[in-house]
């Protein structure tokens, strides 16, 4: 069990690829014309076009943050990436209108037919445009708006423009600037006051063209007392060359609202996944990020909550699994900006083979606040002798009225546990898999059922061949 330098598991399993023909293509590389082209094709208003242009300038001016982040960022070749592709589809209204190809993809993902019909407001993103959009009528009746980013900005500017780019300003970081320049796709959701959306809204994202970067933009606004859960799952076919995924997700929970955002990220191991996610929680509101990162080459993602109203709550639950050649650089950012705000971060990471997982966090209670609380727990599990984990939290507290606690631990699966299970007839690999599942079990339970089942399956798959 001690040493397993080489791990060869079948990583192609579950990969799929379909030939796609693209109606619109902004070409390769990023320049002013790319921005103009995207704006023109999407028939955007001038203010959106200006927003993109401003963002492109900021993106160019900002240095790559390699003074703290992985040097691997230098391997992104921005001039070899396609920034916009679309089949030119308008969001479809009924299941029958969805192209056969897309249906096939769902088939491969293993979503049961019955469930598909049952899923509320499925927003399936095929490449950069939402290709399928089906909202249950009752949701529409309740006044819930669930549209693509372009449609949201064009049709409902009075709702979305107010918050668009406000939770995460263009210049927040280099990659939020990039997304702001070239965004397409994603979901814009508005839930009216008091409406509690019962079923989770879902979106499936895919990358399905070589060298094609995906820059979806999501903005969810839960009005006073509203509740909504959003889920995104990512799968991607495997490609030879590096791909970039850089999303921006903004959540706004107004007074007393609750937003839960669930992600299962399983990009193929050549994808740079550089995502900015932040929620704003007003008085008594709650924003909860549940985040699971299994795929990608390098993921940098630190979901945050700015607790601006008294009594607001923020939570990040995170699972990361890093395999050979993968670096899961994840974490959380909790900014307490009002009295009696509470935040909770629980992060569990597993490093297998030469995989590296990193927790990076910020907890800030910057002003003269009272009664703020934060609890942070980071646990790392190292499977092989050469696995790696890092923890870099930063905690700033002002004043004597607040409480913060941070704990982190690093461990391996105990030999006693494995021995105990093997004595009862499990193979070493089964025992290891069971231990790892046990390690993340209390977090996996937070996911909706179908996701937790899939997660367990994915972890088993990743654990294959890790002992020997």
């Amino acid at each position, binding site marked *: 069990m001690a040493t397993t330098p080489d791990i060869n598991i079948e990583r192609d399993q579950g990969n799929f690829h379909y030939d796609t023909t693209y109606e619109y293509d902004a070409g390769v590389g990023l320049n002013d014309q790319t921005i103009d082209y995207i704006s023109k094709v999407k028939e955007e208003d001038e203010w959106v076009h200006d927003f993109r242009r401003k963002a492109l300038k900021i993106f160019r001016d900002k240095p790559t943050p390699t003074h703290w982040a992985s040097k691997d960022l230098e391997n992104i070749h921005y001039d070899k990436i396609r920034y916009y592709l679309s089949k030119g589809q308008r969001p479809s209204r009924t299941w029958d209108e969805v192209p056969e190809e897309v249906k096939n993809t769902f088939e491969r993902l293993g979503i049961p037919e019955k469930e598909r019909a049952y899923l509320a407001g499925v927003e399936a993103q095929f490449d950069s445009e939402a290709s399928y959009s089906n909202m249950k009528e009752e949701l529409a009746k309740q006044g819930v708006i669930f549209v693509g980013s372009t449609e949201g900005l064009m049709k409902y500017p009075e709702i979305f423009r107010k918050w668009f780019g406000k939770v995460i300003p263009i210049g927040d970081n280099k990659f939020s600037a990039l997304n702001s320049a070239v965004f397409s796709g994603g979901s814009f959701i508005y839930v009216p006051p008091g409406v509690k959306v019962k079923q989770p809204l879902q979106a499936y994202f895919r990358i399905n063209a070589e060298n094609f970067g995906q820059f979806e933009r999501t903005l969810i606004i839960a009005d006073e007392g509203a509740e909504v859960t959003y889920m995104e799952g990512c799968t991607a076919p495997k490609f030879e060359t590096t791909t970039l995924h850089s999303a921006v997700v903004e959540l706004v929970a107004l007074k007393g609202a609750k937003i839960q955002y669930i992600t299962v990220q399983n990009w193929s191991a050549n994808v740079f996944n550089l995502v900015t996610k932040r929620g704003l929680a007003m008085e008594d509101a709650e924003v909860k990020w549940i985040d699971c990162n299994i795929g990608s080459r390098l993921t940098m993602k630190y979901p945050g909550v700015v607790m601006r109203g008294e009594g607001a709550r923020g939570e990040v639950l995170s699972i990361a699994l890093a395999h050979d050649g993968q670096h899961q650089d994840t974490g959380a950012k909790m900014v307490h900006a009002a009295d009696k705000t509470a935040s909770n971060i629980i992060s569990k990471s597993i490093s297998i083979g030469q995989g590296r997982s990193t927790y990076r966090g910020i907890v800030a209670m910057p002003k003269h606040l009272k009664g703020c609380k934060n609890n942070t727990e980071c646990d790392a599990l*190292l499977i092989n002798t050469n696995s790696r984990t890092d923890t870099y*939290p930063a*905690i700033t507290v002002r004043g004597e009225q607040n409480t*913060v606690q941070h704990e982190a631990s*690093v461990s391996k699966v105990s030999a006693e546990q494995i021995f105990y299970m093997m004595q009862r007839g499990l193979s070493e690999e089964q025992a290891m898999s069971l231990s790892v599942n046990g390690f993340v079990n209390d977090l996996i339970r937070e996911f909706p059922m179908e996701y937790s089942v899939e997660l367990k399956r994915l972890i088993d798959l990743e654990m294959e061949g890790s002992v020997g």
Partner: protein
Amino acid sequence: MSTETLSVGTGAIGDADIFAARQEFSGGLPDWFTTMQREHWTRFLESPDPTRLDETWRFSDLRPLSKIAGFVPTPFEKPDADDLIARSNTVKNPAGQLVFVDDNLAAARVMDAELEKKGVIFTTLFDALNNHGDLVREYFMKETPQLGSEKYEALHVALVRSGVFLYVPDGVEVDRPFVVYNWTQQEKGAVFPHTLFVSGKHSKSTLVEFQRAASTETEHLVISNAHVFSGDGSETNHRIIQDWNTKTLSFQLNTNNADRDTNAKSIIVNVGSSQARQEVHGKIFGSGSNVEMYSVNVPRKDQQFDQRTLQTHLAPHSRSDLLFKNALLDKSRTIFSGLIIVEEGAQQTDAYQTNNNLMLSGDAESNALPGLEIKANDVKCSHGATTGRIDESNLFYFLARGITRSKAHELIVFGFLEEVIEKFGDEALEDYVRGRLAEKSLA
């Protein structure tokens, strides 16, 4: 205290010819040493100032650094400081004692004759360079903290001319502590105290450093270094009581280097300085060692304590434990940035790191950056950082028993700090530290 008579060869750090002028006055030193000083002067001049983007200076207040060029390295002259010598009496019966005022040896060296016979060396750095040159050369600046202050370390090496060399030969055990006093006196003076503490195999010894100022009103720059080398099977105890006045910009750049089966302990108490930057790197080169790094910090008013630590495990089967406790008053700020690195192959490592902040004022600010970088799987590593306040229910318990609120506060704060203070394992010193903390910070 006279400030008008500066000797020839002194100017401010920012003066172009300061280094050459100082070198003229430190004649008679080995070539390797003066060459090294010259190289470090160049390194100091060529190194960029820290910026906000440097991770090792995250949250630091960089403004005071611009004042460094204006400080004047203190002149070479025997100080007139009988009162300071008289006040250098905290440890009653030391194994040896050296008292420096503004980097000049002020009192005659005290040293136990018995120990001299056993081969113990306890003398000034320059005396050691002249008489034990090869031994000093083997260890001098062999290890450095590498935690961000490389530029100021270079300045220290270039201008160092005072310091302590303690060498305890193999198998020699000394129960009483060796004591060093460093006093600052001259207004705008810059001093560069250096400590090199080498303990031989299976030896045992303790070094206590007191850092004080003659007056509360003068401004100073202190860039001190302390390097402890614990040989196989040795026990070393290194204590620093940083009690400069509150107009001092101080740097303390340390390494604790442990070979096999050592018990290497260090404690830093911080009372003084306007801004104290401290870097402590515990390097564990051998198996079976236990390295402990403790610190107790009570900043008040505008004081800023900026502490950066590293615990590097290069060998398997060792243990390290770090505990930094801060009680923050008034508008004070602390930064604790700690990192445990477990290198590949350092299996069976046990490494702990804890930072507790007790906030005693609405204007105090604590920053905690507890980090881990683990490259081996069979390890037990954990870190914890807490920031909190005096628990109301604790306070209630005291009040219910007729203890006044202010007394209860004091008891709770001391209870909090006691965990580190009691690690001194020397009652007289513990009482002294409790007294200084009470007098200085809880008054």
